[in-house]
């Protein structure tokens, strides 16, 4: 292991290529530190995206040595192949420039999965009482901490070959909404994921679960949606029109 990292970074748009940089190795260095070093010391025109630097905002995800990762919490020592580090924009979303990816399809699908709360109570109603240990609350708890980093979306095989597929993050969010006992219109959620490209398209490869940086299990969420969808359909409760 030398004092210098051999870093290759994607430059340009979709037709760009990898450019080589030498970056000094430092203690506890993250992949985001490497990218920031290059921009501040070698080439100020390097475009990339980050905000919190502590694994909360989900904006710094990139492809590191072929795998999607959150770069602010990924230590260089854990992912380098000898001294070499290849950093590219996230996969399965268009590249804008260099390491900045266009997240539009990811968030549009997030919206179309309708994983949001549909309330019916007014300000004059009492607070909903949800027992912390109820099965639905426990299920929602297990899936609610998504940071929207799109690492799972980038890792998903089905997204790569089926452009209309909603993807793991959007479906994971829909599963959280489905398990919200206060929600007045759970049918919205099931109808929104019962479309072509919805939860039924998942092949359960579990790349999402393998890559999720915060340890969520979107595969289990999608399996839950499939089960709920099947039950609702067989019982005639799923009104599709």
């Amino acid at each position, binding site marked *: 292991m030398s004092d210098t990292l051999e870093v290759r970074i994607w430059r340009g748009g979709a037709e760009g290529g990898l450019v080589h940089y030498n970056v000094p190795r430092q203690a506890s260095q993250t992949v985001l530190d490497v990218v920031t070093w290059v921009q501040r010391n070698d080439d100020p025109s390097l475009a990339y995206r980050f905000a919190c630097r502590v694994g909360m905002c989900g904006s710094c995800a990139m492809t590191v040595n072929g795998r999607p990762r959150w770069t602010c919490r990924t230590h260089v020592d854990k992912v380098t192949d000898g001294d070499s580090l290849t950093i590219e924009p996230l996969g399965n979303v268009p590249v804008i420039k260099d390491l900045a990816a266009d997240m539009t399809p990811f968030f549009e699908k997030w919206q179309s999965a309708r994983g949001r709360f549909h309330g019916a109570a007014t300000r004059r109603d009492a607070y909903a009482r949800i027992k912390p240990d109820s099965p639905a609350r426990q299920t929602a708890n297990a899936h609610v901490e998504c940071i929207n980093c799109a690492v799972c979306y980038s890792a998903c095989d089905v997204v790569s*070959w089926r452009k209309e597929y909603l993807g793991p993050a959007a479906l994971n969010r829909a599963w959280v909404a489905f398990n919200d006992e206060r929600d007045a219109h759970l049918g919205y959620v099931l109808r929104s994921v019962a479309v*072509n490209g919805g939860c*039924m*398209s998942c092949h359960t490869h579990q790349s999402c679960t393998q890559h999720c940086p915060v340890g969520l299990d979107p595969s289990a969420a999608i399996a839950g949606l*499939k089960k709920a*969808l*099947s039950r609702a*359909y067989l019982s005639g409760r*799923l009104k*599709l029109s």
Partner: protein
Amino acid sequence: MTPLAFVLQRLSALVMVPVVIVHLGLVIYAVRGGLSAGEILGRTQGSVAWGLFYTLFVVSVALHAGLGLRNILDEWTALNRGATAAIAHLFVVLTLLLGLRAVFAVTVS
């Protein structure tokens, strides 16, 4: 994939699990026991139970394979959904025809 297709594929898989196990057991029994074609036909012809069993087999296989084939075509080819539906329907009809003809041959005629 529609919810109907999704549910049908899973239900047909559910049916196929015991049916395929029984079928494989039967094949092993017939081969290891050294039954001749005539002896097998002697047991199956006129048997309502084997007729129903293999009809269930053929119908579940035709549905399951047809739905799976359409999914593969949708995911891996540039064909539009109308074309993949037509190919899948044709495949289901052919599988049913061939399978039910075989069931008819060993249990009725």
